[in-house]
């Protein structure tokens, strides 16, 4: 006799990645590290922003970078010149970093350095406005970049990325005189989807707006540290966590 049964699962498709992201975040919290996930389309200026950020902040904050790139270490090499640890992750054909890949970078950091001495880990995601938005890596904040040359309509066309962002940098502000683009319209399109996002227009070429970005970074690091101190001093050693499988 053919009898069909039903089993209710109700499991999120990305639950394995979510579990990995929570695991990474537990590491960051134990070590007292704040983590940002930087996302944008290719060429929006993530690496240039990181260069300026490392140059300006690495005296006061101990920073490491996890650098996601499909095939090369070109960006990682650029950033190593600033004297900070850069863990390069080649994703191969994958269009985004996931929690497991970032865990690999964290493992490397824990093997080669004392992770608890770091204040900030900056994850540079693969250039892509779609996929990275759905895959958490354990970050405390998502930072999206949109360059002026990409046009006003991108927040409408790629809404998930802009909705997920905690901070949005409008980059390449120095090109404004040469482009027929309306910054106010970009902002209006973003605010339709994410009214509370911190929006910072910058130019890494002229330095305009960068102080505002640096302040945001510092305030996030400070508030994360306060939150963690208030929350709980974890008892388990980070090494014990690293050894446990996802």
């Amino acid at each position, binding site marked *: *006799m053919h009898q*069909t*049964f039903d089993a*209710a699962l109700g*499991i*999120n*498709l990305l639950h394995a990645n979510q579990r990995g992201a929570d695991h990474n975040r537990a590491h960051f919290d134990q070590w007292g590290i704040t983590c940002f996930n930087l996302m944008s389309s290719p060429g929006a200026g993530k690496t240039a922003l990181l260069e300026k950020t490392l140059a300006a902040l690495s005296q006061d904050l101990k920073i490491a970078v996890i650098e996601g790139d499909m095939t090369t270490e070109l960006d990682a090499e650029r950033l190593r010149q600033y004297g900070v640890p850069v863990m390069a992750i080649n994703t191969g054909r994958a*269009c985004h970093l996931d929690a497991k890949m970032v865990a690999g970078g964290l493992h490397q950091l824990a093997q080669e350095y004392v992770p608890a001495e770091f204040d900030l880990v900056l994850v540079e995601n693969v250039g892509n406005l779609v996929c990275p938005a759905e895959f958490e890596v354990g970050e405390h904040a998502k930072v999206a970049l949109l360059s002026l040359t990409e046009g006003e309509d991108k927040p*409408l066309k790629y809404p998930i990325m802009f909705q997920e962002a905690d901070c949005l940098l409008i980059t390449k502000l120095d090109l404004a005189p040469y482009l027929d683009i309306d910054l106010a319209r970009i902002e209006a399109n973003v605010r*339709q989807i994410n009214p509370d996002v911190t929006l910072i227009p910058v130019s890494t070429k002229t330095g305009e707006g960068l102080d505002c970005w640096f302040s945001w970074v510092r305030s996030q690091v400070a508030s994360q540290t306060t939150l963690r101190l208030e929350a709980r001093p974890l008892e388990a050693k980070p090494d014990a966590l690293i050894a446990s499988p996802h």
Partner: protein
Amino acid sequence: MHETDMTRALILTVKDWWDAQTEPPRIERIHLTVGKFTCVEPVSLQFSFEVQRQGTFLAETELVIEEIPLVAFCHPCQQSYEPEIGLHYACPQCQSPMEDIRSGRELKIDRLEYCTDSTPSQAYAPNI
């Protein structure tokens, strides 16, 4: 194409359930709910599933995807509306931002239909 990764996650999750049963059932259908306000394309997911299920315990299984519309709730107007994805997300009445998403972000393995009246497929591939 991240749908490939998602399909792999889907198959591994269902495999966990399958392994936990006392008598391995034959899974006839997997029901997914996919919101329209996600980065997932159901056609790509179907394609990935058809490729990846071959030679596994899911070789005969059908993937049924229910798409869920994007519905937001406007608090000033006290009413729901369906934003036009790609065009306009703010409330069409008062232009308040889309803040309260009531549906459309789902990405869920909802339920399985299975039967236990046959032996498990011998084609199960150990690499899954």
